[in-house]
């Protein structure tokens, strides 16, 4: 695995794009029952392609950025996405890369994140109600799984491209 500033910059740019896409477009779609969570799918996709270190880094950074743009205390989503990234990164070693497989992983991550939201929102001020989190789970799983076939191959391509750029630079 190559490391280098180039990879971090590429990851940051695409993280920002995902954040902007989530807040300006996806969060305002008038969909029944819930909203897709692109950030969660991106964290899972990054961890599936890059393993634990990438999962941890991307999960923490995207979560913290989303936290700072919200009214709830910073660290809540960072904590949640960090755990999702770390857990998903462990699965990467099995080297299974089919889209169907990643959709299942995203579905499991969405359920776990939903339960995590529910737990955290009962602890932290400014969060929602846990009943609502649980009620929104089925649709969130559906929407997030539908995003997966687009996000995972794109993330893998970016990862490959940034790796080769980093090689050239070094």
């Amino acid at each position: 695995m190559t490391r280098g500033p180039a990879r971090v910059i590429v990851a940051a740019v695409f993280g920002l794009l995902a954040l902007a896409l989530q807040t300006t477009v996806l969060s305002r779609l008038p969909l029944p029952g819930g909203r897709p969570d692109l950030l969660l799918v991106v964290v899972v996709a990054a961890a599936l392609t890059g393993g634990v270190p990438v999962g941890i880094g991307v999960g923490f950074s995207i979560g913290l950025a989303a936290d700072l743009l919200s009214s709830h205390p910073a660290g809540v989503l960072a904590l949640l996405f960090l755990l999702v990234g770390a857990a998903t990164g462990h699965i990467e070693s099995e080297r299974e890369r089919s889209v169907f497989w990643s959709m299942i992983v995203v579905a499991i991550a969405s359920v776990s994140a939903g339960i995590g939201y529910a737990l955290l929102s009962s602890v932290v001020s400014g969060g929602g109600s846990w009943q609502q989190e649980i009620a929104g789970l089925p649709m969130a799983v559906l929407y997030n799984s539908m995003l997966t076939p687009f996000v995972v191959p794109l993330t893998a391509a970016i990862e490959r491209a940034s790796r080769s750029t980093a090689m050239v630079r070094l």
Partner: protein
Amino acid sequence: MRRSRRRQRLALTLLLLACVSMVIVDDGGRLAGLHRAASSAFGPVERSFFAVSQPVGRFLRGLPDIEGDRRRITALTTENSTLRSQLRSVALSSAELAQLHAIGASADAAGYSVHAASVVDYGPSPGFEWTVRINVGSGDGVRTGMTVLAPEGLVGRVSQVASDTSLVVLAVDPGSSVGIRDRRSGELALATGDGLEPMRYVPLDPHSPPRAGDVVVTGPYGRSTYTAGVPVGTVSAVTSVGATSTPRVSVRPYVDFSRLDIVAVVLDRAPEPAKAGAAATVTR
């Protein structure tokens, strides 16, 4: 291999500790400066995205309603001509109207100055909290705690202000409560948000429940920071649970919170609970 495992575990532990300490430190709002800086930095990115997505989004959101829109246009045209003819008759008595203004009977309703704004985005954590970001900020005179309206009624309250955007916590946020007044009975109550479900109505006096169809407006209640007299919604259902217990009351808000677009921030009127009484209205 084993060494990198250990380093990963160390990094995970450190980041977890960082998250937990951040939550603890920020739970009292002590990192507000950091939130503000992030909002200001993210503003340009967001606005360029919004510039592209807004027309598309408006078009897509309008599509299911095209037929309804056409009917609404016809209805509005009819209403418009009726109103115009009424206006002509009202204009005759404008002298009386001027007198009324002088007395200040309508000062409460007319005294606000507002700043129009567009909803730039919804909060990044779907469902976790109900917030929107609007494209006006401290540069436009917006301050924390100001009331935000839509043409239909109450939208929410400004919770964070950056230089050119602000974060608005919606009235339907499950953590938000609005002090309200039943316009028919004058009873005070509290309306608590429940996401896209109707708001829950908790009366101050459990022995005088509202009736379905009652109009509720913002009113003084404890430390309510909302501008008084703004329409909130109508009582949609009153369900008695038992003979002795208080009935469950839900309020359907006038504003469709899933399709917010143009809103207005009430600028003057900083929240002053002491001023909320009737006496203040008279002395003014």
